[in-house]
């Protein structure tokens, strides 16, 4: 299945409607400044800079191509719409006037083929604009962004954090990865963020069904290691741990979260409560309010925040109208990231 997904991703890449020329690639290379390995942190201790560089240049070269050919998207969408209109009208005219009886399934297939080009164009451009926005946000903040799905990273992460990443039975991968840092009170706080996608396939006799889940994760490196590993949960997604009651001094905090951890309560509770000082509890509540619910995994060297769905999803950019990225989109993603970095770095500061 993993191979299937890779094949599909390669197919979409090759069939992309935006085909940049060599000059676009050169311009993209110039605009994409060289990235330094020292400025980023990754829990797996490996960042494939070459891959990220290549992927970002691929996306940016498409932007340069579109800037040189601003009418291209309009033309493509017009042709696809025309195919759809002609197809639909044709189906209805034939259906009502023709004496030839055609199988209804054949009509349906015909309609689907008529819709296909339009759907394909819309998805292709939407995905492109999403990637361009994030690359530009990353460039302006000195972050690193990988626009493509990463299967290897998921494998490495699942070994480190099985509570989070050992989920699903097919198509597990990580995408929308950001790496960066923020200096606060003259201390550097490093973060790594992404979306973990997995599918659960079930076979019930002859029927099979599959559901895909997306979890946004945001991890922040701790400057000082903590001695315990536990989860703060709203829902019991961490099946590896058992739930045992621990109460902190804050009623509000206890109402929002429950603790999950391995081991005996008598051994762990003191260590856990020690980490959750009043300031940490306050910051966690603040982030929880701002993000409408989250789960947190505290590990020795980092804290990982988990949010359901796509936290950084937003698209007001319309490449069919003009080849310009909507500033509101950029600001939205920048602000979301700022909030996450700001509050999580405070949490890290008080944990240290």
């Amino acid at each position, binding site marked *: 299945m993993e191979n299937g997904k890779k094949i599909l991703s390669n197919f979409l890449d090759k069939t992309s409607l935006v085909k940049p020329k060599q000059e676009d690639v050169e311009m993209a290379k110039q605009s994409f400044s060289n990235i330094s390995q020292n400025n980023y942190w990754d829990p797996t201790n490996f960042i494939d800079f070459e891959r990220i560089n290549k992927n970002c240049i691929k996306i940016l070269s498409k932007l340069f191509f579109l800037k040189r050919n601003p009418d291209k998207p309009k033309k493509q969408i017009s042709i696809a719409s025309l195919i759809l209109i002609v197809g639909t009208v044709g189906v209805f005219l034939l259906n009502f006037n023709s004496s030839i009886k055609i199988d209804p399934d054949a009509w349906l297939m015909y309609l689907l083929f008529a819709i296909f080009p339009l759907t394909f164009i819309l998805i292709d451009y939407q995905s492109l604009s999403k990637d361009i926005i994030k690359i530009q946000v990353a460039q302006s903040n000195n972050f690193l962004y990988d626009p493509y799905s990463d299967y290897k990273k998921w494998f490495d992460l699942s070994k480190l954090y099985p509570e989070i990443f050992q989920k699903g039975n097919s198509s597990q991968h990580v995408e929308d990865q950001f790496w960066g840092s923020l200096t606060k009170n003259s201390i550097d706080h490093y973060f790594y963020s992404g979306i973990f996608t997995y599918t659960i396939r079930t076979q019930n006799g002859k029927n099979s069904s599959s559901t895909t889940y997306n979890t946004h994760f945001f991890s922040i490196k701790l400057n000082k290691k903590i001695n315990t590993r536990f989860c703060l949960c709203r829902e019991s997604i961490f099946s590896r741990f058992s739930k045992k009651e621990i109460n902190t*001094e*804050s*009623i509000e905090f206890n109402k929002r979260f429950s603790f999950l951890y391995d081991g005996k309560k008598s051994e762990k509770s003191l260590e856990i409560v020690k980490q959750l000082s*009043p*300031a940490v509890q*306050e910051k966690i509540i603040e982030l929880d309010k701002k993000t409408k619910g989250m789960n947190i995994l505290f590990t020795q060297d980092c804290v990982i925040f988990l949010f359901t769905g796509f936290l950084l999803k937003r698209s007001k950019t319309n490449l069919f109208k003009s080849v310009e990225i909507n500033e509101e989109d950029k600001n939205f993603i920048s602000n979301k990231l700022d909030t996450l970095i700001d509050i999580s770095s405070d949490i890290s500061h*008080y944990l240290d």
Partner: protein
Amino acid sequence: MEIKILLIIIGVVFLGIISMFNSLIRLKNHVKNSWSGIDVQLKRRNDLIPNLVNVVKGYATHEKETLENIVKLRNLSMNQTNLKDIAKTQDQLSSSLKSLFAVSENYPNLKANQNFMELQSELSKTENQIAASRRIYNENVTYFNNKIETFPSNIIAKMFSFKQADFFEATKEEKKEVNISF
């Protein structure tokens, strides 16, 4: 049949009373617990102050009055038991420390001292922890007091003589006294 219904009603009411009583006890314990959270942080700050005073003394000889005031407030806070008094003294102590850190800008050697920098960072962290634990305490007091005042738990609170908890804050007049201008 009627007796059975009556017994069921009595049973439900009895269970309700037990549940409300337990909930009041739990809230009361939370208030106590959050107070000890403040206490821990205040003690931590009180432990840091003598070290800070010793470091500053060596560099900022002209700030004798500020230092004496800090030591006086620290000693005073250690002997207080009334919540309002503690809150007032703590606010004054926080302001005095802020003013000390502000005047430290005039002493480059002090500012560059490693011990001073570490103490300043520790104290600022502790100040934030105090502020956070104070907010948690006051939030818990609000929960507890609301429970005591609202129906039907107010009946149980009256029956078992639960009293409203005090907020950890200085009065408005006291807050005005604390304001220090630079």
